[in-house]
């Protein structure tokens, strides 16, 4: 509730145009955070671990697409980048996770943190420190579409559209597609799923492939706005993790709401505190949530107590 009051106060000092500008920026970033958080949730649900290399999938998607765009038209470059990142996701799971026998949660977390460092250093080696970007999908930096009296970059609508579509597709996938059903079953009870004849190991691999894919796709659409750099994944991982916790771990629809919330809070915070403090806001929210509502804004306390982590 205090967030609404905060908005109300800001609107008072703000022109409606500025308000809308901030809102669009907030929703754009919020959806990206939500996609990263959903990536966390998909893997968390099938394995019970947080894959801290999730942000690196976003970075890899963007960087690979940029490199491929030298040789391929944009849509093909993006499709290939997403496919390559999915293969990398599968390889990571098969090489580093699959053969572990009942690994402890702590061991898995350390492995994924190690992987994220490995990927980042690999990216530094391949692409260097330079900041790159995909071109705008339509028009260029200064093209804008006027909505309610404010100019908005068409890329923002690409982000909104693609991320919105991915969220809807994932929802339908887990609800109606047999494979989605099986993945939920693995999340709900791994032993029972095995007793139904499911290969839970393959489902874990598939969850890595799926989250690598959506992360890479998000990395591509957002690249023209936020730029891509070898270490861009770390920041996104922190924001995505905050959002996943804020919504309640494992709950993907809540992650969308929490992502939008964090994105909008960050966007409006610029008018109150200096830009440099923007990241501190996410960390602050993460700490507050972990202290007072560790099961998340939308999570269920008793369900959270049953979870291992």
């Amino acid at each position, binding site marked *: 509730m205090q967030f609404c009051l905060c908005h109300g106060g800001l609107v008072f000092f703000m022109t409606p145009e500025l308000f809308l500008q901030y809102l669009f920026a907030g929703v754009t970033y919020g959806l990206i955070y939500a996609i990263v958080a959903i990536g966390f949730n998909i893997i968390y649900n099938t394995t019970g671990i947080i894959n801290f290399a999730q942000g690196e999938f976003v970075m890899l998607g963007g960087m690979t697409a940029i490199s491929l765009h030298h040789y391929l038209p944009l849509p093909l470059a993006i499709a290939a980048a997403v496919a390559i990142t999915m293969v990398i996701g599968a390889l990571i799971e098969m090489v580093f996770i699959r053969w572990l026998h009942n690994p402890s949660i702590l061991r898995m977390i350390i492995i994924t943190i190690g992987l994220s460092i490995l990927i980042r250093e690999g990216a530094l080696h391949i692409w260097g420190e330079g900041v790159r970007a995909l071109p705008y999908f339509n028009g260029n930096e200064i093209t804008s579409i006027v909505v309610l009296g404010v100019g908005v970059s068409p890329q923002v609508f690409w982000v909104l559209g693609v991320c919105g579509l991915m969220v809807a597709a994932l929802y339908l996938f887990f609800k109606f597609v047999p494979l989605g059903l099986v993945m939920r079953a693995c999340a709900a009870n791994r*032993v029972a799923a095995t007793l139904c004849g499911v290969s839970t190991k393959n489902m874990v691999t598939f969850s890595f492939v799926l989250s690598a894919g959506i992360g890479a796709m998000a990395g591509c659409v957002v690249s023209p706005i936020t730029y891509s750099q070898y270490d861009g994944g770390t920041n996104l991982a922190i924001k995505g993790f905050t959002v996943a916790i804020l919504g309640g771990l494992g709950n993907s629809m809540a992650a969308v709401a929490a992502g939008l919330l964090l994105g909008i809070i960050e966007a409006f915070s610029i008018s109150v505190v200096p830009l440099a403090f923007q990241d501190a806001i996410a960390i602050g929210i993460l700490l507050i949530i972990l202290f007072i509502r560790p099961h998340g804004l939308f999570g269920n306390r008793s369900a959270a107590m049953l979870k291992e982590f």
Partner: protein
Amino acid sequence: MLRIRNLEVGYGKLKVLKRISLHVAPGEIITIIGANGAGKTTLLHTIAGLLRASGGEVVLRDQNLREYPARKIVGLGVSLVPEGRQVFATMTVMENLQMGAYLPMRRDKNRVREQLAWIIELFPVLHERAGQLAGTLSGGEQQMLAMGRALMAQPALIMMDEPSTGLAPLIVKNIFKVIVKMREAGNTVLLVEQNAKAALHIADRGYVMETGHILAQGAAADLLANQDVQRAYLGRDVDAQT
């Protein structure tokens, strides 16, 4: 149908099953009774492939089950209804049943539909609750769902681990009636129970397990009449009666 010979299973150095042998013929209801820690659940988990044996053999028809992982054993026709139901709590009743048909669904969809109709006939309550989350069902309903899910795999042999635990007597009676019906429909049943009396009443034969050994075996009626079994597992004070 199922033949187990000299089966040895352990956790590390600790041997939980010590050279167990038993057999199950098609169409039988076999019960394994015994106190906590006798190794009954370990035995079922080993047959289902959740645990690896260190010695002996488990043969279903001509297949050596020890060579297969748990997920393949379901496909060979052995389903386990695990202790504590283990339903998919966050999924609906119908989705749980669909998961049970994960393997047969690839072979023959019509057969799966028939099986579902039969299961709903056995447990009408599952039909009423079809859209409800399994975690919100009562204990008895969850047990019925777990049995229904196992039956969806169209098993030749269905193994049940303590189906009566924590249930009201009336519901237990109901569940045991269904077990008899399952046999009538051609299923073979391997039933592990602490409620020895109820189990022996519906079973054809029984095995008595204690600390990893089989102490006694025989026709269910004989075991019911056996004074040692009565004293140890049926809670009857035989000495006072004589």
